[in-house]
């Protein structure tokens, strides 16, 4: 069965990791779902590049962390926080494209 990622996740958020990076966190409360998504390999650089219209070389980290049942995606901002032409000073509303992702659970 396929579900939207936001339907399976307990926390799905974005935030600055310093003024030059955006980091996306996706955390689960169901270990089986977490494992299934981790092992499916669907969360990868090509996907992030496509969802966010960014070149892959701006992506610095995609890491799964088992004790927290979650994964993290970090990419460089093209415009740093709070200067001319930035649109999201805290980077707190950049998670929506990831929410809509269809995952097999």
């Amino acid at each position, binding site marked *: 069965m396929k579900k939207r990622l936001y339907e399976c996740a307990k*926390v799905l958020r974005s935030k600055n990791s310093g003024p030059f990076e955006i980091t996306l966190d996706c*955390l689960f409360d169901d270990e089986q779902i977490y494992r299934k998504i981790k092992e499916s390999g669907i969360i990868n650089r090509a996907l992030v590049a496509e969802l966010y219209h960014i070149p892959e070389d701006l992506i610095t980290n995609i890491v799964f*962390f088992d004790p927290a049942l979650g994964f993290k995606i970090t990419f460089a901002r093209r415009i740093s926080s709070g200067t001319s032409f930035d649109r999201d000073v805290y980077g707190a509303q950049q998670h929506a494209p990831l929410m809509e992702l269809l995952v097999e659970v």
Partner: protein
Amino acid sequence: MKELRLLSPCGILGYGFPESSFLNGMAMNPDAIVVDAGSTDAGPHKLGAGVAIVSRRACKKDLEIMITNGAKAKIPVVIGSAGGAGGRVHVEWTLSIIEEILKEHGLQHLKLTVIWADIEKEIVKQRLSEGKIDPLGLTVGELTPERIEKTTGIVAQMGHEPIVRALEQGADIIVCGRAYDPSPFAAVAVFHGFDMAYGYHAGKILECAALCAQPGTTKDCMLGIIREDGFIVTPLSKDRVCTKTSVAAHTFYEKDHPYLLHGPGIVLNLEHCTFTELEDGRSVFVTGSRIERTDPYRIKLEGAMPVAFRTFVVAGIRDPLLIGQLEEVQDKVKAQVRDYYSDVDEKDYKINFINYGINGVMGEMEPCRDLPHEVGVVFEVIAKTQELADTVCSSVRSTFLHYGYEGRKSTAGNLAFPFAPSDVPFGRVYEFSLYHLMDVRDGEEMFPVEEWKGGGAR
């Protein structure tokens, strides 16, 4: 078993916390009250313009509870990244509030110690020329002596070392300039002889106060209990609990990596941590945190410089004929204004439209392009001077308001302004000009510890 108790009242000094939670914490006999006051989250303006994140009144309200209770219990109060950005002006702002509290409560006998975190431009230029400075991020601009010169204030994040020094000197209140958020917590742990890894890991959790609890918030208190074999975190309001996942997940928060955390002179590795829920059903025991010292010791520099002035307008659009061709119309408005000001150098200003309802939040990263029935437009002019920003913005506004686009029926006006006047002169726009790592001799080289005798006594 030997243990150390740290009370963290709130995630940012001045955010406020329930006094009842704080007093629950005091009833558990903490060894120190530690609070983080800083963040770069609100952008470069705070550091660049020398202003605080919170109001003076809010900061005083929190500090008054912390200082009077700390004095009563004879335990130190440690404040990290005073005033938000932790530069001299931010630290002095915090000191003036503390002096007022000490006077009002007859507590002038307390030993007030300040640790400065400002870095002189000459030092940065020197180390830059020696190749001892590297950017921290793929899109951080290249550092040049000119950029350093334009920067209004440079600070660096301190580690635990200078704070330990202040504790050794018997300080009752320690006001730190810019600090790595967990450092003030780690310092108390190291001062009392506990494992630095647990000090920093506990600090990483406690600096956000109750954010790692459920429900999570930065506006409520947490207690950290550091032991020789690990540490315990426990929320101080009955309405919150910590779970093993909520605490494990907190290490994700606003960091680039879920279990490798870089700090001043250290890397914290949390990959092999275990998180155990205690029998009380609300506390979590953490163990297995590891730390490595780095060679050379590197500190993170932060600096902000003014880059332009801004004037902006907020307006709404409800006409579907305009919404259907909004970006094209905006391009034409831009071109017409450029044409009108052909006597002004094009490089001296920029016109920018943010279309809320279409792609206001994400810009070119927005995957969804459906058109809404209503759009909120923020348009701005970024210019060399405030006067030029005001002038050009005024023309953008009148041109956009009356622009006769293809197929227009609403010939009376294109924009609904919620406010009069519509144009808002914003002032200076800043940019993080420094976000770099710099080699230093050790953790104390750049952070002088000074007993504060009051602004007038110096």
